[in-house]
């Protein structure tokens, strides 16, 4: 419950700050384009185009520029909020009756006085309607902020998808919906309340008071954000990252607990950093200090290497490349391999006699569910095509969590799974044998910034304690505990560390 409140708080924070920024930029911009009509088409068109960029794509664009966390999320959200605010303010000001403008001019109001005393007040209902649209919109988009580590209710949704837990998804989605509705109601009430002539002279002071206090509230929120960021960045803090699936949360929790228990360093977790390129950027920039990665993923995704090699050789080429190019260190492998694998239901395995990947062409209509990366990465799709001569009739890009459901519901007949996944056991799936080594080795290991190790030498021995200590069986069991039995990652991680005598 406590966590829910924090996430709701983060969500509200994201929405309020981004909409406030959009108001501060949007309304002056609208005023400018009402005064200079030549700019109108261009400006509205440009903002409209920005709006059409898919939110995830926009967030991804910002990672190299602004890193991960709240900043890129706020920038993206502000951009999304801009269009309804600018458009409504523009229309509102333009629709101020010409009588009012003539009266204001005829009386000798300056252009600025006319704007401040006549045009803005009369356009206010339209402007607020725009703010209302923007706020509701950004509650929705803000759930995606979790993707870049900005927190918010999207964390639940992301996690729910990762561990295939509908309750978690709803725990993010329902408060987000309630939040959107309450904001809608709140701004609607505000709109009625400031309506011209709705209240008399006496309450003017009250109005001013409310305006001032809400302004202070926003400033306060912003200040709180800056202070907490600075605090985090100034202390002895190690930032542990993870990708957006269950095993990664588990490893991140293990690392975090290990550091917290055995050193006096503070730990901040930035989980849910989706795609490899994203979390890699974050590590290179120093937004995070370390995260667990898989050799095969780095080999193809970062090194863009295609040559087939054995597990050891892949580890060493990745290690060498990272050291030289990024000043990042690959620690010794943790001990298990999370290989990509193709999984089918037991029923179709029996029906078509499937044991190896090379048996797959026996299936009449091959439809695969796989993460977006599958198609992009040469070690996945292309490798399968080249090694096994496979042809898929349909490729469905989906989140790893959804793929299992899709397979169980016969929406697809093969999925890309991971060899350590507890859900393979849960759904009683058959992992097809990679009999021709179509997938490269995927040894798990911690990647860490050399700078961080230099700064906190005590980290070195702690992190190395995990090396070689987690076997294939261990990880499959741990994944089963969390994903299928629904236990918390923290508990499972702590239990494991205790069992191994590491804390």
């Amino acid at each position: 419950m406590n966590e829910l409140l924090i996430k709701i708080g983060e969500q509200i924070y994201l929405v309020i700050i981004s909409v406030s920024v959009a108001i501060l930029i949007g309304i002056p911009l609208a005023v400018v384009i009402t005064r200079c009509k030549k700019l109108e088409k261009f400006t509205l068109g440009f903002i409209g185009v920005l709006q059409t960029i898919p939110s995830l794509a926009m967030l991804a664009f910002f990672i190299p520029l602004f890193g991960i966390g709240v900043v890129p999320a706020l920038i993206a959200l502000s951009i999304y909020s801009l269009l309804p605010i600018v458009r409504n303010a523009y229309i509102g000001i333009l629709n101020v009756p010409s009588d009012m403008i003539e009266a204001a001019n005829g009386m000798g109001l300056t252009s600025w006085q006319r704007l401040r005393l006549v045009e803005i007040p009369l356009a206010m209902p339209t402007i607020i309607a725009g703010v209302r649209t923007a706020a509701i919109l950004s509650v929705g988009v803000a759930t995606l902020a979790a993707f870049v580590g900005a927190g918010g209710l999207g964390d639940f949704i992301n996690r729910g998808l990762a561990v295939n837990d509908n309750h978690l998804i709803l725990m993010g989605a329902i408060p987000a919906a309630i939040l959107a509705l309450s904001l809608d109601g709140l701004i609607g009430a505000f709109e009625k309340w400031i309506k011209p002539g709705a209240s008399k002279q006496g309450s003017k002071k009250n109005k001013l008071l409310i305006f001032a206090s809400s302004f202070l509230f926003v400033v306060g929120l912003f200040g709180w954000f800056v202070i907490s960021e600075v605090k985090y960045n100034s202390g002895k803090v190690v930032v542990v990252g993870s990708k957006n699936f269950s095993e990664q949360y588990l490893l991140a929790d293990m690392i975090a607990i290990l550091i917290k228990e055995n050193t006096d360093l503070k730990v901040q977790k930035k989980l849910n950093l989706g795609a490899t390129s994203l979390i890699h950027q974050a590590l290179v920039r120093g937004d995070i200090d370390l995260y667990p990665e898989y050799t095969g993923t780095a080999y193809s995704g970062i090194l863009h290497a295609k040559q087939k090699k054995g597990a050891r050789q892949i580890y060493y080429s990745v290690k060498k490349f990272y050291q030289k190019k990024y000043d990042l260190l690959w620690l010794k492998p943790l001990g298990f391999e999370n290989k990509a694998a193709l999984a089918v239901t037991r029923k179709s395995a029996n029906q078509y006699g499937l044991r190896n990947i090379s048996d797959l062409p026996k299936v009449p209509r091959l439809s695969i569910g796989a993460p977006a990366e599958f198609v992009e990465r040469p070690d996945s799709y292309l490798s399968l095509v080249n090694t096994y001569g496979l042809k898929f009739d349909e490729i469905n890009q989906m989140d790893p969590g959804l793929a299992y459901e899709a397979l169980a519901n016969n929406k697809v007949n093969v999925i890309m799974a991971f060899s350590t996944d507890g859900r393979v056991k849960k759904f009683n799936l058959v992992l097809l044998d990679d009999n021709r080594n179509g997938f490269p080795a995927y040894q798990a290991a911690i990647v860490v910034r050399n700078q961080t190790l230099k700064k906190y030498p005590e980290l070195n021995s702690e992190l190395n304690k995990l090396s070689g200590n987690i076997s294939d069986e261990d990880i499959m069991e741990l994944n089963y505990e969390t994903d299928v039995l629904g236990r918390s990652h923290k508990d499972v991680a702590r239990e494991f560390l205790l069992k191994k005598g590491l804390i």
Partner: protein
Amino acid sequence: MIELINVSKTYDNGLNYSVRDISLQLADGETFVLIGSSGSGKTTILKMLNRLISPSGGEIYIDGKNIRELDKVKLRRSMGYVFQGVGLFPNMNISENISLIMKLGDAKKKLCRDKSAELLETVNLEPGKYLDRFPCELSGGEQQRVGVARALVNNPKYLLMDEPFGALDAINRDALQEELIRLRDRLNTTIVFVTHDILEAKKLGDQIAVMHSGELMQVGSFDELSTCPSNNFVKRLIESAQQSQL
């Protein structure tokens, strides 16, 4: 004194005239009526006086000063301006509407309110009842009275009125015309009054300028116009007044 010398206003890059080569002299204290049908250029002339429209040619002098050289805002604040649309601001109450210009000139709140009350009395509205009301709570006639009060807030020497009573019913129009006459006599304001109603022109105007298609047909008192109309247009206009009065 207001003086217009060969004033023209063209549009479509000088191809067409909305007013052409107008020269006029308006003496202090008189009510000067510009009459004509729509499109005759009467409103254009009025709006050039407070620089809402700038002339394409010719010069306008007010009290000997070329208005091109005067600050627009100061010029407008020194003249009252009333128009058919009234244009009271719905987000301000009556007192705030009337005293807006004073307030912008940093007058104290109390002073603004007192002046508003005084002006409401001038236009025959009971201050206690109206000061705190909002425009939407007033009838059309009441609104236009407030519009006149607002125009008088800076004790202007000149009052520009653009068909101010055009949208009112006959009873209210008559009443407001009577009040305007009393007001003028009391405050000694110079009024430039635009109308298309020859009866209104006759009732209010010391001088009447007849406009047609952007050109000035004739200037004179109603009697002068009726005794020797300069052309058929003026003659017909005067006749229409005499007929409707029968």
